[in-house]
């Protein structure tokens, strides 16, 4: 029977030859992830189950990245729950402050996610790892607890939507713009319960960083996961990061898709998502006059080295607008160090940026850059819901790092081409 990648991965992990959309299967998972918001709840639930040990101390990753370095006493208590549990269970993959990065930048970098695996994380952007050809999906804390005890999770086999991209990317257009275009097209529930598969020559031309930006936002269309088939670039990315064996899965030519959508990207402009949903997208030329108070560059969507390089390219020799705060938060310590070595951080600081240690802080209005009532930010993050970055009357516009950097210089949302 012809199957899609995601169907093959689910079949292989549930001991079956084939699965069909709609079936419910119990699958073995390869990695279980939690953070300082979701894992404390999961640990509380785990303790209720009545088993002493996690199913495999090497297959659980705990990353305190949301309210860390801890912003207050409550969040310090939350982080302590993780730390204590990690020590008690002798977890291999607990990342203390100083090693910690934003989870979805950190895990691929550390070689903890590989093609063909099933990864569940108590964080909705776990879907990021689909960029490496894994079935990675967000779950809640109770699912995380159950998986820590059993090594398993239940799944409804999703239908798959295929997105084919052809054409060469114009200047200042990248993975972020491809996925914003898709979300603008199908809406925030356009892929509800479904798997998204991204393919075509444009995807092949993208680095793993650009691919991760795309897979990261599958959830913003309601998707269960967003997969990109592994290729030579994937293998090169994994080299030196992992020695574990993995299996690559590819969709069969005759596989059944719920829908196939094709895009020619050769004329695509940078995209901007207006408040308060990621589906409110417009091309940069249609944005109009939108003054901003803050520009935020970073997050699990666009906090990788390539993203910082791009921002630095625009900010080199320029200054942030006097009325704009510019915040940059690299995804991991490794990215931070590399950016230092390349002189990127110096360029950013010279441009007037406040550069922070890796943290989710500003992305979810947690700390280090919260917006006041009526303030407006342009951000390279993935969500612009009401109150996402602070006051419920503040506004967030989503865009790629080049647009965010250019806007920081201009003081309003602007095309990078108008600044450089």
């Amino acid at each position, binding site marked *: 029977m012809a199957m899609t990648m995601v169907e093959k991965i689910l079949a292989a992990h549930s001991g079956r030859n084939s699965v069909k959309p709609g079936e419910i299967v*119990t699958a073995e998972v390869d990695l279980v992830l939690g953070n300082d918001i979701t894992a*404390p709840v999961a640990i509380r639930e785990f303790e209720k*189950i009545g088993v002493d040990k996690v199913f495999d101390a090497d297959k659980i990753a705990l990353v305190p990245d949301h*309210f860390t370095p801890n912003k207050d006493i409550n969040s310090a208590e939350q982080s302590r729950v993780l730390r204590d549990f990690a020590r008690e269970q002798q977890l291999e993959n607990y990342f203390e402050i100083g090693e910690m990065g934003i989870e979805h930048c950190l895990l691929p970098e550390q070689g903890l996610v590989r093609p063909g695996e099933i990864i569940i994380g*108590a964080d909705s952007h776990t879907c990021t790892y689909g960029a490496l050809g894994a079935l990675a999906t967000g779950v809640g804390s*109770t699912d995380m607890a159950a998986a820590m005890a*059993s090594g398993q999770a239940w799944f409804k086999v999703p239908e798959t939507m295929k997105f084919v991209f052809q054409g060469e990317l114009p200047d200042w257009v990248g993975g972020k713009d491809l996925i914003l275009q898709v979300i603008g097209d199908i809406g925030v529930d356009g892929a509800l319960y479904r798997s998204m598969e991204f393919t075509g020559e444009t995807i092949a031309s993208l680095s793993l960083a650009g691919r991760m930006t795309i897979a990261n936002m599958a959830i913003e269309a*309601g998707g269960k996961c967003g997969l990109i088939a592994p290729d030579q670039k994937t293998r090169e990315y994994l080299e030196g990061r992992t020695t574990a064996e993995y299996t690559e899965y590819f969709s069969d030519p005759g596989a059944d898709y719920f829908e196939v959508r094709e895009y020619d990207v050769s004329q695509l402009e940078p995209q901007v998502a207006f408040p308060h949903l990621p589906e409110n997208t417009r091309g940069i030329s249609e944005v109009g006059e939108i003054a901003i108070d803050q520009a935020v560059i970073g997050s699990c969507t666009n906090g990788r080295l390539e993203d910082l390089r791009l921002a630095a390219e625009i900010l080199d020799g320029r200054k942030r607008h006097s009325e704009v705060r510019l915040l940059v938060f690299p995804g991991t310590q490794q990215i931070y160090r590399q950016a230092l070595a390349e002189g990127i951080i110096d360029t950013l600081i010279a441009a007037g940026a406040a550069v922070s240690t890796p943290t989710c802080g500003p992305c979810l209005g947690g700390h280090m850059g919260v917006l006041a009532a009526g303030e407006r930010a342009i951000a390279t993050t993935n969500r612009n819901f009401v109150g996402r970055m602070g006051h419920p009357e503040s506004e967030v516009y989503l865009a790629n790092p080049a647009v965010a950097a250019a806007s920081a210089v201009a003081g309003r949302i602007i095309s990078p081409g108008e600044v450089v």
Partner: protein
Amino acid sequence: MNIKGKAWKYGNDIDTDVIIPARYLNTSDPEELTRHCLEDLDSNFVDKMSKGDLIVAGENFGCGSSREHAPLAIKAAGVSAVIASSFARIFYRNALNIGLPILECPEAVENISQGDEVQVEIAAGLITNLSKNQEYQAVAFPDFMQKLIQAGGLINYLREQAGEGNVSL
């Protein structure tokens, strides 16, 4: 299980950031979370509602983050069930896993108005609008989910096996 209460009606794409804003997620205490339930959507919701009331909303309820604090806050506030045209996937899992009754029923959403008295028979998925004298049938749960619901959520389901050593789903 039978439920009866007043309907609180909301629109499409009610996201987890308005159900429980991230600024309150430095704790996971349900009582604490409850105080801020739906705060950024309907600031006095928790004061206005009575225990047993229902939330009725449109498409994609609970979209956004995976925070289980969202269904936990709703449940702890005393909301007896959420009826929506559709649910975001992670919210759907989380609600089932923690035992918050949810029903997918576009017809009910279309017909129930703010303030209607609504009764629900969870097992049968039958929704009765007492104010308008109408009945609606919600989408049935697959067998596996019925088992979870009967056990009172995923943790109870696993706990039943823990005595025997290794647990599995």
